[in-house]
């Protein structure tokens, strides 16, 4: 990783965290509603995943604001979507959990746990069929590794030798349920072992995540078929804004936060890349401004027109018999 990239990753992580805190604030003010899943604590993973898997398609779940931004969607259009505005990524019709942008090969919104995995498999089939080397990355939580769709996807991806990177964000919890209380082990990559190569990585370490995923990406490109990467991480907030998260002890959270991914990346920048405090502050200020601009944009944006309700049920202007 060169210095420029390291700085960008740091910048995006800071931006991501500030974005999430801002979203939280505006949720409490009533500007945002619905289920709002914050990514705070998991930024290393979200950002490095997008930077490492820089080509190809990405399918993810409902905790996707930071990923979307790191993927290249503008913070403005993401924030506007959270606000339900006409200028949002999905023109206010999808909300926080549904940030789709095919122009960035980003399908970052599925609110059905595991529901996007079969879709990612199908897309990987298409890519292989088209002779593309890029492949597809599917991101999901530890909780998603218990549903049928997950297993069917491992199995088919392996049988078809598809270029599909499974990235499991293991934060130890599915809402309030400890993963080990509903599945027999903590390491979810074990479930993939019969089907494909597996890797593990410290999800609180942006550099390690980046390196691991670059290696995995290369394996896809080389035609070795699907690969499974498990990253151990930690969410600081409740599952969504409606969850106080009180099932975790203070001690647990303390240990967790002592590994803060932003602090660690800052240290890397300073120690390894000799970035000085002033430059860091510049990055942080830029992030702060980007979030402020996003909020201003969202606030100033119009609500969708009521006619929007009936648009996009069927495809308009497509090769259709329906107009």
């Amino acid at each position, binding site marked *: 990783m060169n210095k420029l990239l390291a700085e960008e990753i740091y910048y995006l992580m800071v931006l991501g965290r500030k974005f999430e805190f801002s979203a939280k604030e505006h949720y409490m003010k009533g500007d945002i509603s619905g289920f709002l899943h914050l990514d705070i604590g998991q930024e290393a993973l979200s950002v490095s995943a997008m930077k490492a898997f820089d080509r190809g398609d990405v399918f993810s779940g409902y905790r996707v604001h930071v990923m979307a931004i790191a993927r290249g969607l503008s913070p403005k259009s993401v924030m506007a979507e959270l606000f*339900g505005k006409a200028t949002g990524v*999905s023109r206010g*019709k999808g909300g926080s959990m549904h940030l789709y942008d095919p122009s960035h090969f980003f399908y970052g919104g*599925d609110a059905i746990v595991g529901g996007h995995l079969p879709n990612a498999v199908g897309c990987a089939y298409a890519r292989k069929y088209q002779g593309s080397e890029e492949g597809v990355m599917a991101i999901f939580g530890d909780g998603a590794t*218990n*549903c049928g769709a997950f297993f069917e996807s491992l199995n088919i991806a392996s049988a078809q030798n598809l270029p599909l990177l499974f990235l499991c964000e293991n934060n130890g919890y599915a809402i309030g349920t400890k993963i080990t209380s509903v599945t027999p082990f903590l390491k979810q990559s074990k479930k993939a072992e019969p089907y494909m190569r597996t890797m593990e990585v410290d999800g609180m370490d942006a550099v390690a995540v980046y390196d691991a995923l670059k290696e995995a990406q290369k394996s896809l490109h080389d035609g070795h078929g699907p690969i499974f990467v498990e990253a151990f991480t930690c969410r600081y907030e409740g599952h969504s804004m409606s969850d106080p998260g009180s099932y975790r002890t203070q001690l647990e959270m303390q240990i967790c936060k002592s590994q803060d991914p932003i602090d660690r990346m800052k240290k890397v920048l300073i120690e390894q890349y000799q970035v000085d405090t002033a430059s860091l502050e510049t990055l942080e200020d830029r992030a702060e401004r980007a979030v402020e601009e996003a909020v201003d944009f969202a606030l100033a944006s119009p*609500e969708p027109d*009521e006619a929007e309700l009936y648009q996009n*049920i069927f495809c308009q202007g497509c090769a259709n018999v329906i107009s």
Partner: protein
Amino acid sequence: MLYREALNRAIDETMAIDSNIVVLGEDIGRYGGSYRVTEGLFAKYGEKRLMDTPIAEMSIVGNAIGMAIGGLRPIAELMTVNFALLAFDQIINHMAKLHYMSAGKITLPMVVRFPQGVSKQLASQHSESYEQMLASVPGLIVLAVSDVNYAYHALKKAILMDDPVIVIEHELLYNKKGNVDFDRDIDPLKARIVKEGDDITIVSYLKMVDDVMEAVPQIEEKLGKQCEVIDLCALNPIDYQTLALSLKKTGRLVVVEEDHKKGGFGSQVISWAVEELFYTLDASPLRIAGEDVPIPYNRKLELASIPTPDKIVARIVTWGEQNGL
């Protein structure tokens, strides 16, 4: 007492008397349930009777069926009907059919509960209503809970019944207040006359009952007519008797449902009415329902997609005028 407390109490009281009753679902144990319906039960009954499951809806229902075969009386909770779609094979191909296909040798004393409907900006994958899909499956008893007293009594009866029961709750009703009459039993399959009236029969269920009741004073004032409001309560079987009595009196039928209009549950009520009572009807029946669009996230659009008290007033008044009321 709150609606969710009434549900909680129904579960608690039945669990206390029958150790075969167990609860399973995501976050229902240690966490107390997404909508706090099972709050406190884990502490009281422990993990053998409250099984926290992984995110695997097919298994939640499928396991409950197996538990019932094995002699338990499971209560399965799904977080919303939107996830119940993952369990449709178990619900429809197994839960509804095993009793019949085995010629009665297998009985499935079990309950599957979940909320549905539009809450606030949860977007389409968390907001839909699918009661029409389930209420038309032979073999399932389907109850729709709009009322606190009904919540308590109906769930209790459902748990003690030997048939498989689907209990549909509504996302927005969990904190609804109401009184429970603990002394008077009810028949969960009987429709509830929420308000009597001579001129228009308004049939509804779940949250729409509240919206209808909010709309009624204005409708009555504007049309100068009396509304009879019926909460269906049971969607399968339907209490046609209560409906017929009301329609013979009023001659006019309105159905209000939150689900999309096309093929919604209301169409069954209307079809039944015109087949059975065509010549008693004095006006064309009216369906007020959600728009035929996936529920959007934006609040304004979301509200535009479903009936609201204002829209109910407007639609019924216009219809009344068109039909010479």
